[in-house]
């Protein structure tokens, strides 16, 4: 690892992706450096991809007051966090608003924290959001007219398995 980077070589990180062999190295050094170059290239490409994604829509305004600031009261903050972990970020739909750095998730965290600080019940805040965005905004499973089979099917299957097992065990005797 002693030839990680020669002076003046850091600048051409992009071109060497295709050319692993360079003139001034001893043959012994080539394999280690080749591996390193490939690694650097992969990292550079990953970085390039990561950096192009968020450019599309970002505002320059500072985040809402309680987007990244915890509530002073640890008990209230714990309450807020428990709720935020079960609310879907509308921008990054596979993340909760507690996980997401999207500005809108920050604004939603601000809503949650400031409402909880005012003494609002977490489930009331969830209901407020569900009223606006539908069940989709909440990660907390609820039994409703459309979701009850999800809860009923496992119970029915367990019962069925129990009945079949009982019959077979009896038959074996």
């Amino acid at each position, binding site marked *: 690892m002693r030839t990680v980077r020669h002076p003046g070589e850091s600048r051409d990180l992009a071109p060497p992706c295709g050319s692993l062999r360079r003139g001034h190295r001893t043959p012994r050094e080539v394999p280690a450096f080749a591996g390193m170059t490939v690694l650097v290239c992969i990292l550079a490409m990953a970085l390039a991809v990561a950096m192009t994604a968020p450019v599309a829509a970002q505002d320059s305004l500072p985040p809402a007051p309680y987007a990244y600031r915890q509530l002073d009261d640890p008990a209230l903050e714990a309450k807020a966090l428990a709720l935020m972990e079960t609310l879907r970020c509308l921008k990054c739909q596979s993340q909760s608003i507690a996980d997401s750095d999207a500005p809108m998730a920050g604004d939603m965290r601000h*809503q949650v924290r400031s409402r909880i600080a005012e003494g609002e019940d977490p489930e009331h805040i969830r209901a407020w959001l569900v009223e*606006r965005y539908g069940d989709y905004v909440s990660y907390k499973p609820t039994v409703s007219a459309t979701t009850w089979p999800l809860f009923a099917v496992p119970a029915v299957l367990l019962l069925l398995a129990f009945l079949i097992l009982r019959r077979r065990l009896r038959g074996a005797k």
Partner: protein
Amino acid sequence: MIRMRVFLWVLVGLAAGVFGLFAYQLSQPKHEFVESAMIGQPIPAFDLPPAVADRPGLASGDLADGQPKLLNVFASWCVPCAAEAPNLARLEAGGANIVAVAIRDRPDDVARFLEAYGNPFSRIGKDDISAVQLSIGSSGVPETFVIDGKGVIRYQHIGDIRDGDVAVLLDKLKEAGA
């Protein structure tokens, strides 16, 4: 024995059905938009300060003055918002009264944006923490809502307004009583 075979075929059928369902759902295009559940609901109370010097701010009361309006949720940092500007101008020319909420934006940036792409808005409220956006169930910019004269949300258009959407929005506005 025959009963056993029938039972096995039923299992195979069930499995095939489940995989068929997977295949069907996986082949459907992903629905990326979260629609507002506030259609048919009165717009929640709010009062936003002006986002630029030459237009008044926006309050929920302004949306219940008897005249149906379009409510455009936009931002100067949003690229599709610039793309839909010509169609907003077309809507304004078609007789729509368009009011707007600028999301997480600086007055200078909004002014520059409107100078570059035109200003079809009669009022622009400044929403720095997306509070109004969240209260009406909007999940991004740009979005355009049709609000009737009583302040009830009648229709939501998600994303930039394309050429074909202009007539639809004017129709929805007419349905709302314009």
